[in-house]
């Protein structure tokens, strides 16, 4: 699982929805298969968005929309 090198932060484009802890389908793209957050050097997310992503993922985990850790079934 890797992201192809793109120019700039993927969250700046107008087509991507806003970062929201209630949107697990968006947040899933920024966590690894094991459920850990991916570093921005892999996903190319800018620092500003990475901060809000981190918060959103943590909120999302509390309400069981995202896993804290997924071991695979």
């Amino acid at each position, binding site marked *: *699982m890797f*992201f192809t090198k793109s120019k700039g932060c993927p969250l700046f484009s107008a087509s991507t*929805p806003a970062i*929201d*802890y*209630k*949107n*697990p*389908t*968006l947040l899933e*793209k920024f966590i690894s298969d094991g459920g850990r957050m991916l570093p921005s050097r892999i996903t190319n997310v800018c620092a500003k968005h990475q901060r809000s992503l981190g918060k959103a993922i943590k*909120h999302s*985990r*509390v*309400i*069981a*929309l*995202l*896993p*804290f850790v*997924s071991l695979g079934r």
Partner: protein
Amino acid sequence: MAFYESIIIIRQDVSSTEVDKIANDLAQIIESHEGKVIKTEYWGLRQLAYEINNNKKGHYYFMGIEATKPLLDEIDRKLKLSESVIRSSLIRVDEISKNPSPILGTKNLDEGETVDVTTNKKPAK
């Protein structure tokens, strides 16, 4: 008064009429404390990402409210006392968006019809 988003997860073996009852009780508490319920959404019976008290699924209920601190304490107390509610969260937000939550656009697993999940999964990768 500030805006808050509240999400409660209710045990899977509770019927949907009882879910409505819990939500109505909550709304009544809010109204009686001069709070305002701005938006409510029922997200359906969803698969939990991890087990909570041996529950694998739960009814998700979303509420956008305008409230004060004493009201929040009261809501929190009520939700902790309730045995049907397995998880609740209250998050302060700047404003409550009028659009439906993005989670409603994605397909619920328990809607009855079989949706091919593999096709809409990970298109960007």
